[in-house]
């Protein structure tokens, strides 16, 4: 009876996992097919893989240009976000007032509004400032949309540091910057790293704003992928190849930093 339950549980777990991962697996498989194989019915599971689609994607559109845009926007917005969120989290964690909780909730609540609700005003602002299709606009929007989560994560990491350690540093002659550099940074390295990584991933994956504010000049990889879904029809193999090229770098980064990511996301939850 106990064994039976275990078998059922295992089967259910595997089916659910397969269900979730299947589109991704199919995307990877399709990327190595020709267009004919990609739309063949019944779908082909066995075929001779080809890199044709990758070549075509690279030829038709400048992959490196879009990839560079993705790297620049995500890295710069992450650094900028950390620079703004860390002081905010510091003051909330170590100089708590009655309103701190409310401010944190208010920050998070801005993430509950659908992004499309702010599309028109932000579009108009970018247009008026002459920042449409510019990396600057994307970096600003990415940074701002990630800030609430960054502040939350850093806040929950910082508040586990005993305040009297910081007071001791102050008594030892440390300025606020010294406190951060010599005490908070080493003690909260895990939090800082995981917050940075998460925001890197989120910025990289961001599609809504890059599609609406960016185009050929400032477009990110999300724009590149979207360009393969055209009014003339879908080119499945090329779309898959482009998608694979877009997600591959961040998947690799994510793979190597799983530990930090998980640690950061469960911060405070397990203690």
């Amino acid at each position: 009876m106990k064994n039976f339950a275990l078998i059922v549980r295992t089967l259910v777990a595997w089916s659910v996992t397969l269900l979730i991962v299947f589109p991704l697996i199919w995307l990877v498989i399709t990327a190595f097919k020709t267009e004919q194989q990609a739309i063949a019915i019944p779908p082909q599971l066995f075929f001779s893989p080809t890199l044709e689609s990758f070549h075509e994607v690279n030829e038709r559109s400048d992959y490196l240009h879009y990839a560079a845009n993705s790297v620049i926007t995500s890295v710069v917005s992450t650094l900028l976000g950390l620079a703004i969120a860390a002081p905010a989290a510091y003051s909330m964690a170590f100089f708590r007032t009655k309103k701190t909780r409310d401010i944190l909730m208010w920050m998070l609540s801005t993430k509950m509004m659908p992004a499309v609700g702010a599309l028109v005003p932000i579009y108009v602002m970018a247009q008026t400032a002459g920042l449409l299709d510019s990396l600057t606009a994307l970096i600003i929007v990415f940074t701002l949309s990630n800030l609430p989560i960054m502040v939350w994560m850093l806040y929950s990491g910082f508040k586990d540091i005993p305040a009297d350690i910081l007071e001791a540093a102050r008594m030892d002659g440390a300025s606020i910057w010294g406190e951060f550099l010599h005490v908070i940074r080493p003690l909260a390295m895990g939090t800082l790293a995981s917050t940075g990584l998460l925001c890197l991933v989120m910025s990289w994956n961001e599609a809504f704003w890059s599609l609406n504010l960016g185009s050929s000049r400032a477009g990110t990889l999300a724009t590149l992928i979207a360009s393969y879904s055209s009014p003339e029809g879908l080119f499945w193999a090329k779309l898959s190849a482009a998608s694979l090229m877009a997600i591959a770098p961040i998947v690799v980064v994510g793979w190597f930093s799983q530990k930090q990511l998980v640690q950061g996301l469960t911060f405070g939850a397990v203690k």
Partner: protein
Amino acid sequence: MAFLELKGVEKFFGPLRAIKGVDLRIEKGEFIVFVGPSGCGKSTLLRMIAGLTEIDGGSLHLDGRDITKLPSSKRDLAMVFQSYALYPHMSVFDNMSFALRLANVDKKIIDEKVGRAAEILNLTQYLQRTPKELSGGQRQRVAIGRAIVRAPKVFLFDEPLSNLDAALRGQTRVEIAKLHRDLGATTIYVTHDQVEAMTLADRVVVLRDGAIEQVGSPLELYDRPANQFVAQFIGTPQMNIVDTTALPGLREVVGAVDAPDGFIGVRPESVMVRPAGSGKLAGHVELIEQLGADTLIHTKVNGGVQIVSRQAERSTLHPGDAVGLDIAPASYHLFDRQGRTVAAQAGRH
């Protein structure tokens, strides 16, 4: 001008006036102890001197300079925290040298100063360990070492012994006293333990509800308390306080026939237990506490008043035994209804 001077220092927490205009002058090299029950504001006052809590009113002067608004990092004070507050990610050496490294002191001088402090505190063999590899007592010594390495103008101690067990507490107390004698540094020490206050202090500051009740040397406070609160706070067991209306005969027993309406205080060591039938007061033993060196005898005097006596001799009495009590001549303290000490009468020391 005093070395460290507090002038009308005040602190408000919302509408609550937590520190009520404290005036205090501390001379160079003095060992000052702030003592009082929990919530009396002693730690707040220390943190205000440290610059960790803002001063809302009055001013603070150190060595002729107004430091009321100066941040902690610029005050040149060192503090030993109750929780030790060591940097967990640094070795003992790095903990102790942190302030000097921040101040860009030459590496050779740092090595020398840390080495000397480690030697004084018996920490030489632990310099490369991290705080979590040390025992509580060792951590406390590192915290003290971190303070003395800097040679600050004033040492601040915030209940530094309360996390140690009783044996270690006594030992560390002696070490702190020795350290002060050797270094001669101006020290402010906060504790709720009046034994620490009595044994360490040059002068004790007794605080209650954010105000100073009395400042004086330990024996001054013991012999001439300014009021009933200080009288009862200093000394274990507590001074016996008897309402003059509860036991009117006590006036004659202690030899203060003209004592005004209020309270009469007698220290337990001034109360002598006599065999039943002798002594000026009669009563029954309620409880005997044998402490080894001392014996505390709680007696219920006829009329319902309880009086504790302390004697060096062991006792064969049992609860319920009838006894007599005598009170040493001229050993009484008089307080009025508000608890203020009434001026000593002629014939008293």
